[in-house]
């Protein structure tokens, strides 16, 4: 899944970094439409457990994906401190339930490293790159991949 790293020209990517289960993740800021607080979602029948339901985003029906649960952790117990990152990928609008937004930073393409060849399929599917920063690893989330199959077909 890893994209080749170009060595000649350094592209800068603005990302929003956030925390899920005390780990740092980030997504391309160009995909992020807004960030809002958690509001109780309406459950969807027959949906995978990481689809927490739908909320009303100014008249639009916004599906909420529990990123932690999607990545294999247990379901997040959402409280008012949780945050929804509203993202749009290929016309598809959805919300990511995360613990907290930590930073906006810019990452050079040289900083992007391929996801280490680890055993977890889930990790390799959903994390397209990792970034080393200040002794920390930031995982670059592939938004397109984390949508459930059903939603991906809609988009």
């Amino acid at each position, binding site marked *: 899944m890893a994209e080749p790293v170009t060595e000649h020209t350094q592209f800068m990517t603005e990302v929003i970094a956030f925390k899920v289960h005390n780990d740092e993740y980030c997504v391309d800021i160009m995909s992020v439409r807004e960030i809002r607080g958690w*509001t*109780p*979602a*309406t*459950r*969807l*029948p*027959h*949906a995978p457990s990481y689809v927490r*339901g*739908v*909320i*009303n985003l*100014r*008249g*639009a*029906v*916004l*599906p909420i994906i529990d990123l932690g649960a999607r990545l294999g952790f247990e379901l997040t117990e959402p409280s008012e401190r949780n945050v929804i990152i509203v993202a749009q990928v290929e016309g*598809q*609008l*959805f919300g990511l339930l995360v613990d907290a937004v930590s930073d906006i930073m810019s990452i050079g393409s040289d900083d992007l490293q391929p996801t280490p060849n680890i055993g977890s399929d889930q990790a390799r599917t959903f994390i397209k790159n990792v970034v080393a920063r200040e002794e920390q690893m930031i995982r670059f989330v592939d938004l397109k991949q984390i949508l459930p199959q*059903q*939603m991906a*077909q*809609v988009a």
Partner: protein
Amino acid sequence: MSDPMAELRETFFLECDELLEKLETDLLALEQGVEDEELVNSAFRAVHSIKGGAGAFGMSAITDSAHVFETALDHVRSGELKLDPDLCQLFLRGKDLLTVLIGAENGGLEADAAEIEAVAKAFEEVCPEEEAFDPSEIFKPVAVGGAAEIELPELELPALGGEPEETAADPLDILAQFEAAPDEEGEEEGEPQLLVRFKPKSSFFERGNDAAPFIREVTELSEEPVTVEADVSGVPGFAELDPEAAYLSWSLALDVTVRPGVVEEIFEFVDEDCEIEAKVGVVEAAEAPSAPEIEMAEVTIALPSEPDDEPGASEEAGGFIDFEAEAAAESEPEVVAAEAPEPELEVKPAEPEPAKPAAPAPARQAVQPKPVVRVELARVDRLINLVSELVISQSMLTSAVESHHLSTDNRDLLSGLDEFRALTRELQESVMAIRAEPVRSMFMRMGQIARSAAQVCGKKVRLVTEGEQTEVDKTVIERLAEPLTHMIRNAVDHGVEDTEKRTAAGKPPEGTIKLSAEHQSGRVVLTVKDDGGGVNREAVRKKAIEKGIIAEDAQLADAEIDQLLFAPGFSTAATISQVSGRGVGMDVVKREINALGGRISMVSAPGEGTTFTISLPLTLAVLDGMLINVAGQTSVLPLSSVAESLRPEAEDIQNIGGEQVIFVRGSFVPVLDVGAALGYREPLESFVGKVMLLVENDHGQEFAFAVDDIVDQRQVVIKGLQDNYGRIQGVAAATILGDGQIALILDVNDLTADAGMVAAPSPLAGAA
């Protein structure tokens, strides 16, 4: 849209839609035997505009077909051709062909080369002498007798002014007409006339327009002989001459009874590409200074001031410009002034009251289109969305006020809130009305479908429409087109018998399919009724057994056999014909209709025909719903499917093979545990204390939906779930409640579809 050409094309296709619709209306009126010259003229104009536009975009297939069509229409105009039913049919065929060709250019439809040729040939055959478009020929009948003396300074030069090939002949023709035109200037000196000055710009020719037909059309307005003068003074010397530029202008003097607005209407489609001026004055070299001048009618876009001013007017597009009234109001008093010196002259527009302008062309006056603004649908949708939001925030505000007990001691607040609610509601309704449009355009498309289907089947079929003005939400209309197309094709192919059979049965050889629409208690009801042989129940039954849809020994009532037509994979035609039988059957039609929140039913009488009835909600945007509580989630059931609610006692519920049924007035109804069906919780052990809602699905099967509680009944705004999530089993859509929460709207058919296998109250359950 960054490409200006693409934008122009878009506009052209939009205009074509309108023109084709207009054309069809005119042709159908002519077919009905309405004798009105204006109809022919109007049809001609429509075809001509299409031809012109298509020419500009280099769509030669359209231009060619429009050309032969136009020529034939012109022969009718000139009286060389007599309009008879056959010719009307040919015209309609020509129109259908144009529709297909335009559709092909716009992407989607496929044009049939054989049909193009056949139509072209048919047109050529009806046209008396020449087959090629020759403006000079058409001109002859127009030319008026009388001696004329007109100076023709440079005969050849004007030809260079216009576009090389096409317009080359025009000035000559016009000049030729000059010779024939009577010179009445002498006798009528000083008499006011309507002076028209027409100066095409080069863009006029670039778009494939031709000056001659326009001039001819203007000359035809006048009852008196017309003088036409070409102004060649603008033509530069040969060295400076740009072969692609337009240098010529023409002046026409019509009798004063012709109103400027009518003249401008002729140039409506090209008004950006030419200068056109129509004013009353005296035709004199040194235009009598005293002659009152009338300003060119101002082009104004008049919007209806009242929002409820017939929203359906939007269909009458084409004319966004309504200068008629204004022009009349402005010009008339001055016309009077102009006549003052000659009191004996009786001129119609002399009537002083501007409210009732004299109409030289009453027919045209009658069909004057209502002013219209063309708006992108997406903008309307956005508006509708915003208004729904407003409705929600209004109800949130109301509940907030109530929860703080502010309203009890504050009358102003209370009445203010009431007014706010009323206004919001009214605003919502008005906004919804914007999207409503008459079903007319769709009905017309169906006319075309029926004609082409009849042609393929070799049957004589006539489609009669009724209630074309019935208004339905545009989104409903769009999604209805496909199922309706299929039903019309079916009616032609399977419904109406062939001519021999009809004659043998003592019926008129021509079959009739009646398509009608009307409003009935908040829904729109569409019917497709044919006068054919009715459903051949024996054949249907045999086929159903063959296909394994029913058991061989199944005892079915007539109505149940008819229902088999809606069963998946069923098609009665023995051979797969080009018309229907494309693998989609009535089951698809039914599914489509159901998806729109509608129902379809049919009645068939042997030998008399079949009637399909579709009942649809007026809009896809709102729904009367019952709010229920299931496992802590608020959901909505469409009120139309809920028959009654009850609280069962323990002894009312019985167990059959692990399934629960409830005893309601003498019959057992299967219980559906909604919470479990949606996967919200484990199936309930006991339904005591729960609420049972008696619900009927589209197959007429009854179920008792077990829910925790009934919350409310109200109208909810439907929000699609599909766009951002996709389809969910058992859920039709979503809505937003007063507190801003989303509630799912349950799909009764979907929920009962699984249960139906078990419950199976009728032999059709498996099939339907």
